[in-house]
C-alpha cells in the first residue's frame, strides 16, 4: 500500500467522522479499512510504475499490432520480383517534379528509378533515385545547349538538342553511354527512344537506327527503312509505326510482339509496356497484343476518342480528345488508378513509364499518380522492404511465440512432475533434461534443418523450425519449475489437498502450478525474445526460414557482403533495427515483470 492512499483513507475517515459522527466507522469492513490488493493487482501496479518497462511494453505492443494487422493492407506476393527496382534507397520523391520545372513542362521521360524532365526553354532536370553513374556521366546544360527531346531507359537517358546533336549518358553496358559511328553523323533526328538497355533514333526521312543489348532485342528494320515515323521499345522487342499508319515489327525473329493484329486500320499512336503493345486507331479504338500479363489487355470502357497513349512497365494510360484520362493494367503501385482530381482535370498530355504517370493539364500544372517510392527502400530483388518487413515480423513473432508455447508446455509438465514426485521419476527426467540441455543448439538445429528440411514443403519447414526451437529450449524452464514446485509441495495447502483426497496430478497442476505461474510467465517472456533471436540467426545463416518467405533474420541474409553493408545500408539497418528493438523491448518487459512480481529481486 502506498503512502498516498493511506493518507487519503485517514483523511476521508476524519472527514466522515466530522460529518456523520462515530456511527459510520463501525460499518466499514476490514477490507475497506486496510485496502488489500490481490497479488495480480500489485503486480500490475508495480509494473505500471516502472517507466522503462512501460515504454518497452508500449513499443512492443505497437510493433506487434503493426506486424499482425499490417499484412492485411500491405499484401505480400511471395513470387513478386522486379529487376528494374533493385536496391532503391528509401525515398518517397520518385515523382517529385522540381519546382523550377513546374508550369512549363515540355516532356517527361521516365526511367526505372528516375525521371528526366525537359522544360519549354530546353533545360533538362533529373529527379528520383538515379544511379550514381547516371549523375556522374550526365552532360552539363552548357554542353547540351537547348534540348528539344529526351528519352529514358532502364538506367540510361538520351537527349537531343536543337542543333540535332544527340547525347547519351548513364550506364555504359552495351555501349549505351556512347553513340555508335553511324548515329554520330546524323543531324535530322526526329524521335529518340530508350528502352530496356536499348536506344533507337528515327530520322526525318524515316530511317531508324538502334543500338544496345542486341542479345535481347534483335533489332532489324529491313525493308521498312525510310518509312518509319515512330518506334516503341518493349523489354525484348521493337515495334514501329510507318508514316502511313501501319504497325510493323522491327525484329528478325517472330515473337509475341510481332503477331500484329490485321484489323488495326490506320494507327495514330502506339505504346509498349514491358510485354505488350497497344495501338490507337484513327477511330480512337485501342487494341492490345503481345505477351499479355497483369490485365494489360483489359481496356476499360472509354467515353470519347483516344488520341494518344502512353505505357509504363505493366500498364497503359490513354487520353481522349476531350482531355479525359484512363489507365489500365497492373495496379500494384496504384499506377493504373487515375485519381479523381485528374479525371476531372483537362489533360493535355500524359507521360508514363515504369510505375509512374505524369499528366500535364492545359493550364500547365503537373499531376502525378503511381509509385512515389519505397519508404524503407527496396531489396536486391526489387521488392518493397516495408511490405517484407511487416510480413517478416509476423512470421518471426509467430515462430517465436509457438516455439515458446511448445517449450513452456514441455518445461512446465516435466518440471512439475519431476519436482512433485521426486525420486526415480525425478532422477530420470532430470537426466533427460541434461541430455537435451547438453545438445549444442545452433549446430544441431542447422543439421536437422538441412537434413530433414530439404525434403518437405516450405510450410512444413517453418513448422519444423518452431518444433526444433521448442524441443530444444525447455530445460531451463524445467529446472526452474522443478525447484519452485519442490518448495511449494511442502506447504500446508498441499497437505490439506492431499488430506481431502485430491488426485496427485490435480494437486500438481491445479494447486501448486498457479503458485509458480509468475515464474513461468517471466521465463516465457524472456524465452520469447531468445526464440526470436535463434530463429533469426538460423534464418540469417540460411538454415531457418528461407526465401521467398520473409523473416527479419533472412532479410539480413543477403547483406553479408561489404557492398551491401556499405552501399545499400537500408537493406540491413532496417530489419536489424526492427529485430533489435523487438527483442530489447521483450527483454525489458520480462525484466520489469520479474521485478514487479518479486520486489525482492530489485533489492538484491
Amino acid at each position, binding site marked *: 500500500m502506498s503512502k498516498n492512499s493511506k493518507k487519503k483513507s485517514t483523511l476521508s475517515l476524519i472527514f466522515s467522522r466530522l460529518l456523520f459522527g462515530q456511527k459510520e466507522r463501525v460499518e466499514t469492513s476490514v477490507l475497506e479499512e486496510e485496502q488489500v490488493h490481490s497479488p495480480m493487482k500489485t503486480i500490475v501496479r508495480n509494473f505500471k510504475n516502472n517507466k522503462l518497462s512501460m515504454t518497452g511494453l508500449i513499443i512492443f505492443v505497437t510493433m506487434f499490432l503493426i506486424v499482425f494487422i499490417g499484412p492485411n493492407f500491405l499484401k505480400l506476393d511471395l513470387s513478386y520480383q522486379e529487376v528494374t527496382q533493385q536496391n532503391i534507397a528509401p525515398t518517397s520523391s520518385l515523382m517529385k517534379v522540381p519546382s523550377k520545372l513546374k508550369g512549363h513542362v515540355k516532356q517527361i521521360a521516365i526511367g526505372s528509378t528516375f525521371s528526366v524532365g525537359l522544360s519549354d526553354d530546353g533545360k533538362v532536370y533529373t529527379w528520383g533515385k538515379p544511379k550514381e553513374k547516371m549523375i556522374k556521366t550526365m552532360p552539363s546544360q552548357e554542353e547540351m545547349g537547348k534540348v528539344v527531346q529526351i528519352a529514358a531507359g532502364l538506367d540510361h537517358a538520351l537527349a537531343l538538342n536543337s542543333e540535332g546533336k544527340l547525347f547519351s549518358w548513364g550506364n555504359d553496358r552495351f555501349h549505351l553511354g556512347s553513340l555508335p559511328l553511324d548515329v554520330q553523323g546524323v543531324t535530322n533526328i526526329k524521335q529518340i527512344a530508350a528502352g530496356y538497355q536499348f536506344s533507337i533514333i528515327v530520322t526525318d526521312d524515316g530511317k531508324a537506327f538502334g543500338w544496345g543489348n542486341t542479345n535481347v532485342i534483335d533489332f532489324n528494320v529491313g525493308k521498312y527503312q525510310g518509312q518509319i515515323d515512330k518506334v516503341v521499345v518493349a523489354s525484348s522487342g521493337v515495334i514501329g509505326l510507318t508514316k502511313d499508319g501501319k504497325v510493323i515489327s522491327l525484329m528478325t525473329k517472330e515473337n509475341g510482339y510481332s503477331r500484329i493484329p490485321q484489323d488495326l486500320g490506320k494507327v495514330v499512336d502506339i505504346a509498349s509496356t514491358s510485354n505488350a503493345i497497344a495501338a490507337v486507331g484513327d477511330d480512337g479504338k485501342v487494341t492490345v497484343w503481345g505477351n499479355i500479363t497483369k490485365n494489360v489487355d483489359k481496356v476499360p470502357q472509354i467515353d470519347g476518342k483516344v488520341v494518344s497513349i502512353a505505357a509504363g512497365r505493366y500498364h497503359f494510360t490513354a487520353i481522349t480528345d476531350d482531355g479525359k484520362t484512363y489507365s489500365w493494367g497492373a495496379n500494384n503501385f496504384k499506377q493504373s488508378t487515375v485519381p479523381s482530381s485528374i479525371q476531372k482535370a483537362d489533360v493535355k498530355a500524359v507521360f508514363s513509364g515504369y510505375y509512374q504517370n505524369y499528366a500535364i493539364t492545359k493550364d500547365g500544372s503537373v499531376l502525378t499518380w503511381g509509385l512515389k517510392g519505397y519508404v524503407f527502400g527496396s531489396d536486391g530483388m526489387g521488392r518493397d522492404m516495408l511490405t517484407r518487413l511487416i510480413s517478416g515480423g509476423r512470421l518471426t513473432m509467430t515462430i517465436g511465440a509457438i516455439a515458446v508455447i511448445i517449450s513452456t508446455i514441455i518445461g512446465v509438465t516435466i518440471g512439475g512432475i519431476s519436482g512433485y514426485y521426486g525420486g526415480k521419476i525425478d532422477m530420470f527426467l532430470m537426466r533427460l533434461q541434461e541430455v537435451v540441455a547438453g545438445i*549444442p543448439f545452433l549446430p544441431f538445429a542447422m543439421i536437422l534443418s*538441412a537434413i530433414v528440411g530439404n525434403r518437405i514443403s516450405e510450410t512444413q519447414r517453418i513448422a519444423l523450425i518452431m518444433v526444433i526451437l521448442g524441443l530444444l529450449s525447455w530445460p531451463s524452464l524445467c529446472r526452474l519449475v522443478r525447484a519452485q514446485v519442490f518448495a511449494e509441495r511442502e506447504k500446508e495447502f498441499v497437505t490439506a489437498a492431499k488430506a481431502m483426497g485430491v488426485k496427485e496430478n490435480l494437486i500438481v497442476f491445479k494447486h501448486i502450478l498457479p503458485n509458480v505461474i509468475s515464474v513461468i510467465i517471466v521465463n516465457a517472456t524472456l524465452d520469447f525474445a531468445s526464440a526470436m533471436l535463434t530463429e*533469426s540467426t538460423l534464418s540469417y*545463416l540460411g538454415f531457418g526460414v528461407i526465401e521467398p518467405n520473409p523473416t527479419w533474420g533472412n532479410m539480413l541474409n543477403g547483406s553479408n557482403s561489404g557492398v551491401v553493408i*556499405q552501399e545499400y545500408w537500408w537493406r540491413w539497418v532496417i530489419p536489424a533495427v526492427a529485430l*533489435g528493438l523487438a527483442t*530489447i523491448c521483450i527483454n525489458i518487459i520480462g525484466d520489469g515483470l520479474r521485478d514487479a512480481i518479486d520486489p525482492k529481486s530489485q533489492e538484491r
Partner: protein
Amino acid sequence: MLKYIAKRILYIIFVFFIMSIIMFGIFKMVPGDPAAMAIKDVPKTDPVVYQQKYDAARERLGLDKPIPVQYVSWITKMLSGDFGYSESYRNDVINIVKEPMGNTIFINIFNVVAALLITIPLGIVQAVKKHSKFDNVVQVGTIVGYSLPSFIVSLVAIYFFAIKLQIFPVSGMNTPGFSGTGWEKFLDKMYHFALPLIVMTVASLGSMTRFVRAAMIEALSMDYIRTARAKGLTEKVVIYSHAFRNALLPIITLIIGWFLGIFGGSVVIEQIFGLNGLGKLLYTSLQAQDYNVVLALNMFYFVIAIVGNLITDLSYGLVDPRVKIN
C-alpha cells in the same frame, strides 16, 4: 569425492551414447544412397556388373547388416578416430578438421578470457554501487547487449570499423599473398582476428555482466558480510575476499555453460568474417552436403558439451565443499 567423480563419469558415458544414437539416427535420415555414391564412377551400361559392384559396395560399407550392427561398427570407428572420408575435400575428415579446430578453440578461449576480464570487475562494481546511476545505465546497456544477436553486432562493427574507418579488414584469415617471418604472419593473422574477437567479446558481455552482478548482490546480502564489516575489515577485503569468493560458484557454472554455447555460437561469427573455423566448416559442409564432415563436427560439439558438463560438476565439488556430501 572419488565416488562422486566416478558416478559423474559413468553418467556422462551414458549420455554420450544416447547422443551418439540420436546423431546416428539423424545421419541415417540423410537422403541419398551411400552405396550408389561410392560406385558412382562405375558405368551403368551393364546392369549385371553394376548390381554386383553395388552389392559389393553395400557389403563393404556394411549397409546390408541390421541397423544396430551398423551403429556398433560406426561408433567403434568413431571412437578409434576414424571419421570417414570427405567427398568435397577429397581427404580424410580428421585431416580437414585439425586446422579449423585450432582456430575455433583459440577464438573461443580468447573470447572467454577477454569477456571475463571485463564483466567480472564491471559486475562487481555494479553490485557494490547498486541502484546508482552507473548501475542503472549499465543495466539497460546489458539488456540491449543480450537482446542483439551477434550477426547484427557484426554488421554494425563491419560497417564502422572495416568500411567507414577502415581500421580492420572486412573478412578473411590473412592478407592474400602475404609473406614474412613466422612472427609477421602471426601478427597479420591477429590483425584479421581482431574485429571478430572484439565483436564476439562485446556480444557476450550483456548476459555475463548481469549474472555476475546478481551473484555478487546475493553474496553481499549474506550475514557473514555483515559480520565481516562489523569486524572492521576494509571494504576491499569484504568485497573481494568474502563476497566474491562466494559469488564464484554460480559464476563458474555459467562460464562453463556459456563456453559451450559460444562454441556453437561462433558459427555465425566465423561465417560472417570468413574465419577458417569449425563453424564455417560446418556451414560449408552442410551447403555441400558433405555429411561425414558434418557428423564428425557434431560429435565434436557433443564431446565439448559433455566434457563441459563434467567440468562443471567437478568444479562444483571443488568450489563448494557441501556438494561432495551428496
